[in-house]
C-alpha cells in the first residue's frame, strides 16, 4: 500500500459474510439451512468520520457491527482496522485490541448490570484491561467521565434503577469512553429514548467525537437522526448494501428504489408538507433471510423490477463519484 497514511481508511470491510446455521432436532442436531445475515458487504470508514448503517430489522446492520466488534467471528471476508485484520485475529491478540473499538448499545435498561453501582460499571473495563490499576485514580477517572457525559459525579454511588433512560444511556457512553477508544460502534443508541432526550444524547455524541477525535459507526433505523449525525451512509437490505453515498446526496437524490421507498415512508413533522405529497407505501414485507429471493433481493417489492432482476444479482456500481448503487435499472 503506497498511499500516504492520512488518506488510508481507519476501517475497511471487504466481502464480509456472516451465515448462521439453522438446526433442527433436539437429540440429533442437524443443520437444515442457514441464515445469511450478512452476505457480502464492503465499505470503509475514514478516521474522524461518522458512517451511518441503516436498514430495517433483519437487514444485517447489527450483525455487521457485531462482526467489527468481533462479538461474532465472520464466516468470510476481511475487517482491516488500522492495518490489522480483525476477522482472523485470535483471542489473545483481540484482548489488547478491544480497547480501541468500543460499543454503545441500544437498550440502556438491559446493558447495565442492575446489581452494580454506576461507578463500578464504568470502572470495571479499566480494571480488567489494567488501564488504571490504582483504585483511587480509577475513581477519579470515573467522576471525570461522568461529568464529561453530562452527569453529576455523585451518580457513581447510585444504581441503574435510580436513573432515567437518558441518564443510563449516558452511563453506557461513559463506560465506552473509559477505554479511550478510537472507534465506537453505536448500535441504535437513541432509539429507546424519549423524543426530548434523543436530541440531548445526539448532541453529546457529537461533542465527544469532536473533543476526542472519535470515529463512529452509527447503526440506526431512524433516518432523520442519521441524516443529522452522519457524513456518509450505507443502506442495507437483506444482508447486502444496496446504496452508499455521502449523506446529502443519499438523502437529497436517492437512486436505489429501496432507499427511495424507505425515505418516502418516513413522515415529516410538518402537516403542510405531508398534505401536499402523494404518498403510496411500498408493498410487501422483507422476505426471510433463510430463503432470500433469487437475483436482486428487492425485486419482489420493487416498482421498477424487470425480468432480468429475478435472475441476476446486481453488483454495486459507482454511478457518481462516491455514490454506489446495487441496481442495474438505475442509470
Amino acid at each position, binding site marked *: 500500500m503506497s498511499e500516504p497514511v492520512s488518506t488510508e481508511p481507519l476501517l475497511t470491510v471487504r466481502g464480509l459474510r456472516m451465515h448462521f446455521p439453522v438446526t433442527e432436532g433436539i437429540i440429533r442436531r442437524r443443520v437444515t439451512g442457514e441464515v445469511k445475515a450478512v452476505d457480502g458487504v464492503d465499505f470503509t470508514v475514514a478516521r474522524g468520520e461518522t458512517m451511518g448503517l441503516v436498514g*430495517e*430489522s433483519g437487514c444485517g446492520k447489527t450483525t455487521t457491527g457485531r462482526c467489527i466488534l468481533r462479538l461474532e467471528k465472520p464466516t468470510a471476508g476481511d475487517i482491516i482496522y488500522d492495518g490489522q485484520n480483525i476477522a482472523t485475529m485470535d483471542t489473545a491478540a483481540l484482548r489488547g485490541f478491544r480497547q480501541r473499538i468500543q460499543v454503545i448499545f441500544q437498550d440502556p435498561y438491559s446493558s447495565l448490570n442492575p446489581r452494580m453501582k454506576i461507578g463500578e460499571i464504568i470502572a470495571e473495563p479499566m480494571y480488567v484491561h489494567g488501564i488504571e490499576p490504582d483504585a483511587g485514580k480509577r475513581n477519579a477517572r470515573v467522576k471525570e467521565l461522568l461529568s464529561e457525559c453530562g452527569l453529576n459525579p455523585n451518580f457513581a454511588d447510585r444504581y441503574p434503577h435510580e436513573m*432515567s433512560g*437518558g*441518564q443510563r444511556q449516558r452511563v453506557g457512553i461513559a463506560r465506552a469512553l473509559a477505554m479511550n477508544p478510537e472507534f465506537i460502534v453505536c448500535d441504535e443508541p437513541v432509539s429507546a429514548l*424519549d*423524543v*426530548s*432526550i*434523543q*436530541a*440531548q444524547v*445526539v*448532541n453529546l455524541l*457529537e461533542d465527544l467525537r469532536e473533543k476526542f477525535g472519535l470515529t463512529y459507526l452509527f447503526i440506526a*433505523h431512524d*433516518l*432523520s*437522526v442519521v*441524516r*443529522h449525525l452522519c457524513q456518509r451512509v450505507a443502506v442495507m437490505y437483506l444482508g447486502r448494501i444496496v446504496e452508499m453515498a455521502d*449523506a*446529502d446526496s443519499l*438523502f*437529497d437524490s436517492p437512486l436505489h428504489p429501496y432507499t427511495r*421507498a*424507505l*425515505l*418516502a*415512508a*418516513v*413522515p*415529516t*413533522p*410538518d*402537516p*403542510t*408538507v*405531508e398534505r401536499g405529497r402523494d*404518498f*403510496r*407505501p*411500498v*408493498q410487501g*414485507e*422483507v422476505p426471510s433471510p433463510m430463503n432470500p429471493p433469487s437475483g436482486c433481493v428487492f425485486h419482489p417489492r420493487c416498482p421498477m423490477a424487470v425480468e432480468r432482476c429475478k435472475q441476476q444479482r446486481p453488483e454495486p456500481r459507482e454511478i457518481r463519484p462516491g455514490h454506489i448503487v446495487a441496481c442495474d435499472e438505475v442509470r
Partner: protein
Amino acid sequence: MTVPRLLSYHPTKITASQREHPILPPLLEIIGLHTEFRTGAGIVRAVDGVSYGVEAGETVAVVGESGSGKSVTALSVMRLIPDPPGQITAGSVMFAGRDLLTLSEPEMRQVRGGEIGMVFQEPMTSLNPVLTIGRQITETLEQHRGLDSAAATQRAIDLLNQVGIAEPVRRLQQYPHQLSGGMRQRVMIAIALACDPKLIIADEPTTALDVTIQAQILELMKGLSRDRGIALIIITHNLGVVARYADQVNVMYAGRIVESGPAAEIYHDPRHPYTVALLRSVPRLDRPRQARLDPVEGQPPDLTRLDAGCAFRPRCRLADAGCAVARPALTQVGKAGHSAACFKAAA
C-alpha cells in the same frame, strides 16, 4: 366516585364547539378525567384533569413522552385501569350519549371491542399465543354479534381481506408466532374492525414496526377511517406520524394537556414552550444537517413530586416566579380551537 378538592376542569375546544352546535355533541367527550395510581413512592396523578373530544370520523392524535399520561387516558376511557393500584377518581367519558364511567361491567364489555375497537403497541403480547388467529377474530364476533361459528368464520375471512392479508383461509389456522409483526398488527386491526366500531383507539400502533411496514399500517388505518367514517385516536410520540395523519392534536405533559388544536396550528404556530421545544428538537429528514440540535434540557418530571406550579417549569426557558404559583389552565391562544396551558403563551 370522589371529587378531589382542586378539580381542575379546563374548558376545551370541544366544549366550546358543543356550545355552538348543541344538537350534535362529539362522538367521544372526555371531561375532567383524573386517574391516580397508589404506589410505594406516593400517589401518582397519571391523568390530572384531561378533557378532549373526538368528532365522528375525525383523527385525533395524543402526543407525549413516556409518563405523560397519554396511554393511561386511553385505558381509562376503556375502563382497563388495574384497580388496585389504579383508580379513576373523577371525570366523565361521554360516548354516544352515555357516561362510560357509570356503566356496569357487562355493559362496558359490550362497548369494548364492540363500539370502540382497540389496537395496542405490541401485537405479540396483545394477541393470545395459544389461540389461532381465526379463533381470536371469531371470538369477538360470537361474543358481540351472536354469530354462529360458520358465519363468524366467513366474516373473519372478509375482515382479513379488508386489512390486506393474503390467503386469509390459511392464515385463520395459524398462530400469532407464525406471522410477522406487520401481519400481527393487521390482525389486531381486523379484530378492532370486527364489530363495525365508531371509534378505534390505537396506542402506539406502529412503534414496534419497521418504517415501511409502519407506513403500510397507518395508510390502512387512515383508509378504513376515511371510507367508513370511523373516528381514530392515535396515541404516539412520533411527531411525523401526527403531521401525516391527524386532524386534531393534543400534546400531553405530566398528566395534563398542555396544548390542543388543529394539526396545522400546532405545527406552524405552537404556543406552549414544551411544544415549541419538542418540534425544534427533532432532526428532519427533508433538511440538510444543521450545526447542533436544540434539545429540551433536563429530565421529565417525577410525578410523585409535582408541586403547585407549572410542571414544565424546571425545563422551560420562559419560566419565572409566576409559574411557580399555580398550574396554568388551558386557554385559547391564536385561532379558534387552539389552546395552550401556559401563562406566557397568550398573544
